[in-house]
């Protein structure tokens, strides 16, 4: 079962089948992603307005930053779900694992928002992802979204105020960087082209 409800213990070889992803908590995400890749974009669901009392060490800005990151992660999750069926077997297998890890990131961010005294908004009903015509298009889309996430985290992490929250966000950044490396490899590009990950490729 894959859900974004919260952090899970690390595991090796995710092995989550598409069927498993399409059941339970993953079903809504899968439906949204698949529809949108086909171009049927819709308006995002507006989350309820929540008034929360912030702990003294956490600023409202932190919650906004984490919520923005969550939204990007959810978009990437939708892209993986929608794009995996278009990929050949080996990249699809890797992408399924990356999807599972992206879901873990959403859970982590929700947990961070909650711990910071905030309330994660519900995910959108749909995301505009374009119409990748083939596997190469899907890989390009995933590469673009992962790179966007990296750029966002690099901008966001220095603005987060508690150090441990910064470090926690960095544990997501590292994995997104690894995803980009593997996507580049699959695309026939240099896997690690620079000494510094900047999200500006």
């Amino acid at each position, binding site marked *: 079962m894959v859900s974004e409800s919260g952090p899970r213990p690390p595991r090796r070889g995710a092995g989550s089948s598409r069927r498993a992803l399409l059941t339970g908590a993953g079903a809504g995400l899968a439906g949204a992603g698949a529809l949108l890749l086909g171009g049927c974009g819709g308006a995002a669901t507006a989350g309820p307005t929540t008034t929360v009392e912030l702990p003294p060490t956490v600023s409202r800005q932190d919650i906004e930053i984490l919520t923005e990151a969550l939204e990007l992660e959810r978009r990437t999750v939708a892209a993986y779900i929608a794009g995996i069926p278009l990929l050949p077997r080996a990249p699809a297998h*890797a992408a399924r694992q*990356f999807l599972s890890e992206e879901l873990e990131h959403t859970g982590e961010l929700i947990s961070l928002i909650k711990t910071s005294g905030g309330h994660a908004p519900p995910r959108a009903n749909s995301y505009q992802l374009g119409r990748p015509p083939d596997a190469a298009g899907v890989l390009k889309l995933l590469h673009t979204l992962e790179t966007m996430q990296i750029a966002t985290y690099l901008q966001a992490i220095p603005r987060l105020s508690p*150090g441990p929250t910064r470090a926690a966000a960095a544990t997501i950044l590292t994995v997104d960087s690894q995803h980009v490396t593997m996507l580049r490899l699959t695309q026939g590009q240099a896997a690690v082209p620079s000494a510094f990950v900047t999200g500006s490729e």
Partner: protein
Amino acid sequence: MNGPTRRELLIAGAGAALIAPGTAQAAVGPHSASVPVPERLRRLVQLEMLLLFCYRYVLHSSILSRRAERTLQPFVAHEEAHIHALERQLTARGGRIPSPPAGVAAANRDLAHRKVGGRLGQLRGDLDAIRLLLTTEQVTIGAYFVALTTLQDSDLIELACQIMANEAQHDAMLGLLLPPGKIQAAVPYGLVQGLQ
């Protein structure tokens, strides 16, 4: 599960015990915050120097397959760039640049001190070398993770993130060189915080 999550422990305070992916039980100790920035930078430079020493040693030892050699060769320049960037920050804060390992014996002592398995000079092939480099990369990632809990300067935080992410990319490429050599085995965890 009724206990606090790893993240809640992290938020709750720097003394929280963390379970690192895979094997290590790590702790961001209560004294982390008390390490002055120049000292934190000096430690990072020292660790990067050890990592660079290991890459150079392994690449010159002729024990790598051609594929592994091709993969690892660019990482040397990456580690050099990390060192230069950190040294600039360190000297700007009045810190003294540490010396690189004086030789194999010194590097091995440092590896042992950091609980990295394997010793330079005793590596029996590709896999031994890659495992040693992989663990050293993970220790380096862990050092940046700890540093991020305490650094306050925005530029330093961004630099630490950029390098930490690059080391994680190295980690993934090293993982790909180990059996079964598949992408999903090279990126096995959803959260990477390294080893402390």
